[in-house]
């Protein structure tokens, strides 16, 4: 798995490439959670190059979303492949995460 981090205004963007499984989720957690704890309030996760997510990856997303909701922050996701979207549906995540087809749409939402 590769994580590419970029900043667009106050939005912090993390693009995931490859697999978010039990092994790589620990790395992802180490990259995503500290900036939120340090006060970043707008997080965009670009999953357009992500091939796989397991419950370990979902757990990190849930942690991030809870922290952001506690600090009046916002999270948005984009580019979910169909198989990733089905995992979100089964886990009940599609109902609580704002999901957008493309990165510009997710950015617009976060910059509102």
């Amino acid at each position, binding site marked *: 798995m590769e994580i590419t981090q970029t900043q667009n205004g106050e939005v912090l963007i993390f693009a995931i490439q490859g697999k978010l499984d039990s*092994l790589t989720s620990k790395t992802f957690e180490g990259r995503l959670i500290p900036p939120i704890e340090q006060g970043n309030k707008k997080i965009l996760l670009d999953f357009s190059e992500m091939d796989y997510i397991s*419950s370990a990856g979902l757990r990190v997303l*849930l942690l991030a979303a809870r922290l952001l909701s506690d600090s009046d922050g916002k999270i948005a996701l984009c580019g979910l492949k*169909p198989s990733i979207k089905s995992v979100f549906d089964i886990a009940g995540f599609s109902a609580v995460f704002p999901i957008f087809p493309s990165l510009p749409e997710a950015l617009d939402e976060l910059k509102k």
Partner: protein
Amino acid sequence: MSQTNHLTLHLKNDLAEIERVGEAVAALCEEHSVSAETVYAIELALDEVLTNIITYGYDDGEEHEIAVRLTLVDRELNLEIADDARPFNPLDAPTPDVAAPLQDKPLGGLGIHLVRTLMDHIEYKREHEQNVLIMTKKIA
């Protein structure tokens, strides 16, 4: 041309071993033209079960062996996982409330919920001091 219908893998109780299972599943499924969605479901189910065993099943710090057997018969894939970890029946695990709002969403139990949803049939038995989990998935 003959096709592989059966595959056995022996893994150590190390999370890094799970990737090997995913690769073997992908190779077997490719030979049998299994859809990408079904391959994902099978890989995910194995990942979740193995992650649970490796993360929570042992407390002696020793190396253990986990056997994974894949058998494809009549467009049905059989996955059998045998381990000598502490007794654990995933079918007894409570179903998490996935419809709960964000703050009440459970952090645990999601993996088993995914497995139970994605597989067509799951059977658990404890025999010869081993957990044996058999999951089946119909291949479209």
